[in-house]
């Protein structure tokens, strides 16, 4: 594994594992075949990892959600749908690579896939703006949502963005309005919709693809109203306080589930989806299959009524009689 992608809290155990590997290579070089000699060491390393990953702080969870090797939306779509046909462009100004979408079958049913794409390597990430869409990207998403409604296909969206792109042109091209229109379009879709937060769920830029009948979230993903850094800069007046902000914002998958924003937390392979993308995709496929088949059994009016009630009752307040 490339050293550059080792997260700070993983370092001690990664070093330990490297030592074991060295010793094993040395033993094999000497012609010794003693796998049982390494067993306690391997057990120790696994226990250490489990300890670290069992007590991750919210700030460390955010680092995991941002892991550069974490499977992107494109990876997940390709793993779940082998006949994916990509559709591109907003039919108006440009094709925003930060939004990926198209048609592909899943479990024998053609569905419309939509997602934020962060990019697979450094160059691709620059090209995709690290998954931060421009207003044109949201207009592309709207176009794909209409496609789903027109051909009566379920829509599955994969959320993985630090937020909408903050730029001069993005503002002049109505970033806020584009997001608002994507939200209203998705809210009024007449087909079943499922959203999965697979990495970063960054604010309005994420919600634009996330008003769905079923909201799922990977174990090590986060979903928040503002990035921990942004929150720390405003409330603590220092971006260095981001770990505290991450803790206070309650942005982890379990917290979002407890707050009622997310319907189900999808398990990840041990030590993060990036360790075993195929296993992670299998967990996603299982959950998606279950929720989609349940939604497909509902009538259109029931679907819309349930979605309306779901989002109209989200929030926490008290009511006093005046």
């Amino acid at each position, binding site marked *: 594994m490339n050293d550059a992608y080792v997260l700070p809290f993983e370092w001690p155990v990664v070093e330990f594992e490297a030592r074991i590997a060295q010793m094993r290579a040395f033993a094999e070089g000497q012609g010794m075949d003693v796998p049982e000699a390494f067993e306690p060491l391997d057990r120790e390393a696994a226990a250490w990892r489990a300890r670290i990953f069992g007590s991750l702080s919210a700030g460390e969870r955010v680092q995991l959600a941002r892991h550069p090797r974490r499977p992107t939306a494109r990876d997940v779509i390709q793993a779940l749908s082998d006949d994916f046909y990509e559709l591109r462009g907003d039919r108006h100004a440009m094709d925003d690579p930060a939004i990926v979408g198209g048609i592909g079958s899943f479990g024998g049913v053609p569905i419309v896939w939509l997602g934020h794409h962060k990019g697979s390597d450094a160059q691709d990430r620059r090209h995709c703006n690290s998954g931060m869409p421009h207003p044109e990207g949201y207009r592309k998403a709207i176009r794909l949502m209409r496609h789903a409604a027109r051909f009566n296909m379920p829509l599955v969206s994969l959320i993985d963005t630090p937020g909408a792109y903050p730029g001069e042109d993005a503002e002049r091209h109505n970033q806020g309005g584009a997001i608002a229109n994507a939200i209203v379009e998705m809210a009024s879709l007449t087909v079943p919709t499922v959203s999965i937060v697979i990495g970063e769920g960054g604010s309005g830029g994420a919600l634009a693809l996330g008003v769905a009948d079923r909201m799922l979230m990977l174990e090590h993903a986060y979903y928040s109203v503002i990035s921990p850094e942004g929150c720390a800069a405003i409330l603590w007046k220092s971006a260095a306080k981001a770990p505290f902000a991450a803790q*206070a914002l309650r942005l982890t998958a379990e917290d979002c589930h407890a707050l009622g924003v997310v319907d189900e937390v999808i398990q990840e392979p041990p030590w993060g989806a990036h360790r075993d993308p195929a296993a992670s995709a299998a967990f996603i496929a299982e959950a998606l299959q279950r929720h989609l088949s349940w939604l497909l059994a509902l009538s259109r009016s029931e679907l819309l009524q349930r979605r309306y009630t779901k989002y109209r009752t989200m929030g926490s307040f008290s009511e006093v009689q005046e």
Partner: protein
Amino acid sequence: MSFLTGSRFSRPRRASSESCVRKRLKETVWHFCPQCRCLVARDAWFGAGKACQACGYHARIGSRERMRQLVDVGSFVELNAGLRAQDPLRFVDTRPYVERLREAYDGGRRDEAVLTGTGCIGGIPVALAVMDFDFLGGSMGCVVGERVARLIEHATAHALPLVMVTASGGARMQEGVLSLMQLANTTMAFTRYRACRRLAVAVLTDPTMGGVTASFPSLADVILAEPGARIGFAGRRVIEQILRQSLGADFQVAEALLRDGLIDQIVPRWQLRGELMRLLRLHAPKPVGAGSLALVGTVQ
């Protein structure tokens, strides 16, 4: 109190002399415009709704005052006044959220960042939502979202036109992802409002930023703005940090938004009520068949 009469405290300072002048002005018929530093007749200043007609400066005003300026006298009925914010995350930054909330309530002077209800504008009944920047930066938390959503539902049920005046820094961080969900909550209510074919007007005032621009105001049929209002999704400083250069003075200002085609009109505060009346009259529901009859009349 001899220690207070020492030279340090008794020496007259320039700042205090200016505030002294201002204090005396307050008692007379003149008002001192903070932007152009002109003397404005108090009647003109308040007649324009706390704006300077000479330089176009618009002072920030609270939601109750704005409501008084817009609706016919005595016609306003507040809705859902009893909704109160909770602290779902038990959020603590440098201070606990509950403490900030208590301070913002200010002993009952303000009760949330939005005031909603029904009233008449020039005799036409409307549903109104007016945001208040002085309550935690006009931030949209669960109560703001719920009040707006319930108002939109009320407007849908009674087929009322909708007037929404915004002033907000964005979503309320202290309520975390639940305040983000208020974008979905208000939008969800709006999907049904569209079906009843009544006019929705948004009036964007200084400042309207962040999450609020990504929900109900942007969905309005007609979008108006006050002169000089700062309106945008991402904060100016954030964009400057990313671009590593400073942006023009008119970036994210109402006048630039008008040029870029993001809003319909810029309306000074002293004309707002009149413009709303005109718009509402033009969109008054027509009885079936009446439209064509009137048209025949004009042709003859």
